[in-house]
């Protein structure tokens, strides 16, 4: 006799269909939704946001009644609802995202999850999707009120269709940053500080969203009619998606097993983000109505947005596990050195710089409004990133074996960057060099950006130094993997016995 009280549903029934569909869903999502629906917290938060929305709406209606101004009531009601929506999605939801991963750590269930066969990606994605699903339930409660605001006139449909997705994207970015912090902060005290940062950032984002709605509610409707504005809007939406994906990939890396290549997804997302940026730039190149500065803005924005991912790629430990060994084996067959740890990150960044350079070369020759010296605006940030992050992470690579060591190296990157900019200024003050004291030197990224093409060669030289310092680290890492493999500690011995192809 079955000990289970709920037998499986009969085939063909709705339950069986739902059951079959649930088999394909992320188990974490199912668990979290079950818990949220049964627990009191979600209901409380939902009712709280609805109450705030109702109160804001009534307040706007009353203030319209008192002032006797009914012409822009729809806009005022929308802004009031947008406030409440932003509180729910941008302030409360990121805290929930931070807590949901943190609770697993505090309740000692995270290790059980990691051993359960779920990948770090499934854990992080499942958690974030469940949080966003709760956010969509909150959003659904606002839709009738937002529709009422539109019917009352004073707000453009394009504005609603632009502002609501922007709020959702803002929420997704904030939640992914919260998940990233939660996954990478292990100790209790920093975790408490982390939740403060998430709450503070969420409140700031809420005010930002509300301000955007207030300022742009009437003007943002132009998006639908101006191709430049539409392009910039689409670019922003996709960039927000890329940023969310980058932080999620960083969160996944926080849960990866020490011998696994946890940064693989971060490298993939970085590469895909760079390709999307290039694709946008190429579209801008071919689009007759678009200005050249839109193309430049896309590439400069992408170069700056990709810097944090580079920080994580470069300051990670050398990988000595099976994946590194397999990559090394494949790499021996070709010219491309498959290097553990930050090596692949460096390689990726150089490829991104080359791709951006190629797009710019095409733009200079094909698009009016772009000068040849504009190329420095894109290549300078990439080169300086390589220098500021590459030099300290290459020199301090031996400390990256532990999470605490990695954190110290990342702090060292920030100190090194500050030192590169400030120390020459201090030195200039001592020796009486006025230009140096004012920060006019090639280690200062901001000054170099203002010099445009005049500083490009120096920026590239600095980037090369950042690369060179890491070559030592890459070769040392490669040598260590080879040593471990020949000692039989990595991969089956059959791999070791394979004949090595002749290098030409």
């Amino acid at each position: 006799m079955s000990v289970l009280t709920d037998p499986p549903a009969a085939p063909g029934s709705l339950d069986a269909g739902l059951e079959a569909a649930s088999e394909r869903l992320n188990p974490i999502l199912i668990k979290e939704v079950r818990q949220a629906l049964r627990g009191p917290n979600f209901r409380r938060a939902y009712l709280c946001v609805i109450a705030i929305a109702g109160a804001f709406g009534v307040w706007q209606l009353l203030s319209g009644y008192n002032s006797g101004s009914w012409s822009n009531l729809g806009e005022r009601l929308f802004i009031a609802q947008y406030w409440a929506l932003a509180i729910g999605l941008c302030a409360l939801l990121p805290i929930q995202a931070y807590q949901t991963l943190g609770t697993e750590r505090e309740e000692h269930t995270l290790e059980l999850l990691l051993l359960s066969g779920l990948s770090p990606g499934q854990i992080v994605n499942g958690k974030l999707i469940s949080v966003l699903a709760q956010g969509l339930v909150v959003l659904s409660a606002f839709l009738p009120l937002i529709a009422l605001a539109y019917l009352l006139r004073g707000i453009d449909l394009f504005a609603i269709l632009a502002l609501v997705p922007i709020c959702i994207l803002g929420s997704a970015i904030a939640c992914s940053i919260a998940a990233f912090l939660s996954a990478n902060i292990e100790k209790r005290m920093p975790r408490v500080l982390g939740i403060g940062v998430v709450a503070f950032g969420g409140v700031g984002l809420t005010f930002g969203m509300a301000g955007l709605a207030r300022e742009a509610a009437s003007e943002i409707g132009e998006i639908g009619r101006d191709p430049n504005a539409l392009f910039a809007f689409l670019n922003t939406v996709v960039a927000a998606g890329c940023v969310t994906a980058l932080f999620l990939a960083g969160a996944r890396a926080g849960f990866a097993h020490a011998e696994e290549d946890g940064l693989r997804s971060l490298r993939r997302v970085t590469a895909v983000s760079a390709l999307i940026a290039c694709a946008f730039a190429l579209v801008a190149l071919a689009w007759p109505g678009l200005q050249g500065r839109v193309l430049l803005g896309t590439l400069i924005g992408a170069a700056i947005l990709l810097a944090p991912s580079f920080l994580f790629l470069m300051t990670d430990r050398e990988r000595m596990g099976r994946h590194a060994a397999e990559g090394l084996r494949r790499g021996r067959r070709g010219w491309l050195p498959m290097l553990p740890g930050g090596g692949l990150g460096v390689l990726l960044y150089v490829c991104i710089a080359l791709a951006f350079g190629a797009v710019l070369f095409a733009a200079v020759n094909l698009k009016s409004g772009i000068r040849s010296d504009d190329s420095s605006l894109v290549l300078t940030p990439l080169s300086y990133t390589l220098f500021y992050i590459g030099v300290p992470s290459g020199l301090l690579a031996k400390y990256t074996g532990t999470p605490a060591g990695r954190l110290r190296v990342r702090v060292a990157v920030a100190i090194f960057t500050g030192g590169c900019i400030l120390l020459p200024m201090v030195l200039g003050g001592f020796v009486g060099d006025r230009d140096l004291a004012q920060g006019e030197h090639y280690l200062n990224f901001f000054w170099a950006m203002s010099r445009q093409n005049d500083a490009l060669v120096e920026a590239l030289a600095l980037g090369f130094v950042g690369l060179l310092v890491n070559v030592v680290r890459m070769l040392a890492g490669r040598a260590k993997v080879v040593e471990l493999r020949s000692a039989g500690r990595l991969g089956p011995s059959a791999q070791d016995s394979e004949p090595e192809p002749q290098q030409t």
Partner: protein
Amino acid sequence: MSVILEVERVTKRFGKLTAVDDVSFEVQRGDIVGFIGPNGAGKTTTMRMCATLEMPDEGDVRIAGRSVLVDVDNARHAMGFMPDSFGAYPSTTVLEYLDFFGRAHGLRGKERLSRIEGVVEFTGLGPLLSKELTGLSKGMKQRTCLAKTLLHDPELLILDEPASGLDPRARVEFRELIVALAGLGKAVLVSSHILSELSEVCTGAVVIEAGKLQAVGNLAEMKSGLAKTDEVVVRALCSPEAMAEFLSLQPGVDDVRREGATFGFEFGGDDAERAGLLAKMVAAELRPVEFRAAETDLEDIFMQMTKGELR
């Protein structure tokens, strides 16, 4: 018997502290190996390395032949780990908990249901399936955690202090479950501070202190190696004073100790001389009801192998 767990010269350092230093042992299919040592000896660190939650700085751990350094996914699949603290999800029933972990292990549809049914039947959780985890007693939580650990049918079970905090009945029941698991061919590595518990179920023991291996092997062999062949235990219906006086007069009897009506003493003679001593007791009308050589238990092994070294 095939080796399921091979711990090969593992070393783990945390900063300057060497938590585990060059430790090696094996656990075979069907074996229950007790992992014992004082607090801070490195037991949990070693178990976490076996469970792939910590990486050894040196050496390797193989689970069913899969290295935790090289083949983490398959090593994890071959192993079930039950930590010392059970994290219970709020607003989740026992059935939902097992269903979640079944899904996490990639079990689909009927296969998942049948596995859940199997582990529920084995652990006797049937009546509790609709109960919320947070409302369960410690013993029932441990059973639920064991059921979760068994869902993917691992070859090796690593149980860290499974009896801690359980009442005597729950302990006995849990012990029976462990024995039954070994009977099913699972290899079990279990740590506990309650040595009498381990003594009754273990076939082997690993003793560790200050990160270093002190002893490893079959429990029976370890006991015989440490056997107190000279010590005799006797209990009689006569007055304790009469027994004490009798023993004080016997040649070869030394170091007499008394615990209630039971006496322990050193006696250097062989089996024939022991038989003679017993005959004398009967003749002296001391009415002996128990006369045996003292047994070595896990506690004795622990006390002899460890020095109470602190780090």
